């Protein structure tokens, strides 16, 4: 069950492999392709029952229509407004926590570390009622910063795990040498460790961006109007209005999916590095 490298096989196998991969990919992405195709299908095609054939023409109007008639632009902007501060906040906080847990040896180090790790795994529902209540009491319900504050706090768990493991792998000698020269701890953090953490910061930033952009649960719990709802929650409520108008649902879905997809393709290396950290040692 572990195939020989394809270079070492005969041309017949090699060619059939090269044919098989795109076919497998096509089947794999069938739901996505179907929706992409539907998003440029004119409404008249759907009415006439042309669900699967080629669209009679490419109706990019569908996209224009949703921008014109729905607040989808606003939703997309809201997502950006929530996501970017969250990325900055969570990465900044976890650089510090990761540094503290990765560099210093103190008694409760491991305990605190595993508290972050465990907290990162809890079901959202156990947090829902108190967090919603807290957000209401602080008067930040239905605002981007109310939502972002929670996201920053929660993502700090995952990011700390990531950063701490990354820092553990850095050469300790560098820090020891700096200490001998009397460099203060804060300067060590800022001038020595932080520059080395750049790849980790990039990887985390991409990952957190994707997680937050795609969050639906907290968006529904902590926001409720189009002034602050991100695209996931917005799409869900638009779906309630677009009953049976699959060309619009599809166009909206594609729009919602684009930013994280773009982020993934632009920052692919960092993205995969982030996801797989810890998977291989």
């Amino acid at each position, binding site marked *: 069950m572990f195939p020989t490298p394809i270079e070492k096989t005969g041309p017949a196998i090699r060619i059939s492999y090269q044919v098989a991969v795109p076919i497998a*990919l096509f089947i794999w992405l069938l739901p996505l392709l179907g929706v992409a195709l539907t998003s440029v299908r004119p409404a008249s095609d759907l009415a006439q029952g042309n669900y699967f054939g080629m669209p009679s023409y490419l109706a990019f109007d569908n996209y224009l229509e949703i921008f014109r008639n729905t607040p989808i632009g606003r939703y997309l902007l809201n997502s950006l407004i929530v996501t970017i501060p969250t990325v900055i906040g969570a990465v900044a906080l976890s650089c510090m926590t990761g540094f503290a847990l990765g560099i210093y040896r103190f008694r409760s180090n491991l305990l605190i570390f595993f508290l972050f790790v465990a907290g990162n795994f809890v079901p959202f529902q156990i947090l829902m009622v108190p967090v919603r209540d807290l957000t209401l009491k602080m008067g930040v319900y239905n605002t981007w910063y109310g939502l972002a504050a929670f996201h920053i706090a929660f993502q700090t768990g995952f990011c700390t795990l990531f950063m701490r493991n990354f820092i553990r792998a850095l050469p300790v000698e560098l820090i020891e040498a700096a200490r001998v020269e009397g460099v203060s701890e804060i300067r060590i953090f800022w001038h020595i460790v932080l520059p080395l953490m750049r790849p980790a910061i990039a990887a985390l930033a991409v990952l957190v961006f994707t997680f937050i952009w795609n969050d639906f649960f907290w968006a529904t719990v902590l926001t409720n109007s189009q002034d602050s709802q991100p695209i996931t929650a917005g799409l869900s409520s638009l779906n309630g209005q677009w009953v049976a108008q699959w060309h619009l649902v599809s166009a909206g879905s594609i729009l919602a999916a684009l930013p*994280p997809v773009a982020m993934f393709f632009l920052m692919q290396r960092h993205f*995969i590095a982030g996801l797989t950290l810890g998977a291989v040692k």
Partner: protein
Amino acid sequence: MTRPALPASSAERVSRSWWRSNQRRLAPWLFLAPGMIMFAVYVIIPIFQSMWISFYDWDGLGEKIWIGLDNYRELLDDDAFYTSLKNNVIWLVLYLLAIPAGLMIAIFLNQNVWGMRLYKSLFFFPFVISQVVVGLMFSWFYAPDFGLFYRLIELLTGQGIAVLADERYVTYGIIAAGLWPQIAYVMILYLTGLNNVAPDQVEAARLDGARGWRMLWYVILPQLRPATFIAVVVTVIGALRSFDLVSIMTDGGPYGSSRVLSFYMYEQALSEYGYRMGYGAAIAVVLFAIMMVFISGFIWKMWRDEAER
């Protein structure tokens, strides 16, 4: 700072040198403080608050009324709770299929041919997309009368199946939607793992006559152990967190048959027809307890790895 009073001019110097001599002890706490405070306020403390709220009858507006264990007693006699629990088990078991499936795709794609990098990223694609979008895509896929899947079944059996309206299939239909991105995720974990599989060991095993399943089981899998561990962790967590897809695709229906605990909790505590914060919290506590079994297992293993270092 505990020294007897000194002239003002040197006080500053003292506190400075005090900082200097103690900074290695204090610095970690200063660095930890902001993150820990945020995490405590939004994650750690709410867990205990939820447990507390689960002993109350509370509609989120009025007074909380202490009712002790009544919420839990009601849970024991609640059909919808058992339906959700059963579905959670189905989710958990079937979600684990993502691991062998992801491994198979990873092995299939683990070749060096032209364009492979692009193929790999395209296979990974579903994971990047929001579950809301995945849910909508599969709703379209399953839609009665014109959905691709419905048509396909109709073609094969002569009778289409409205997957999302049939209590027999609905949960499986949603899980299939969830497996799509999850398999992609597991695949990427294994692809990275496979990069690090020592080719000489594989060759050596091949010379020894190992092939097929034996090769996979005795030579490859042991080397992929770290990837498998992470894959199990993210898959179990993903299965128990399943909320988005249920909410988008069926809203728990038909007649509640596709509910899972996470969704049922939300439905009881925050939805149109229910504002039972206490009861919802009790469901959340049960879900948390189930999750805790797994979390403890993961943490225990990671703790052991740390200690071995």
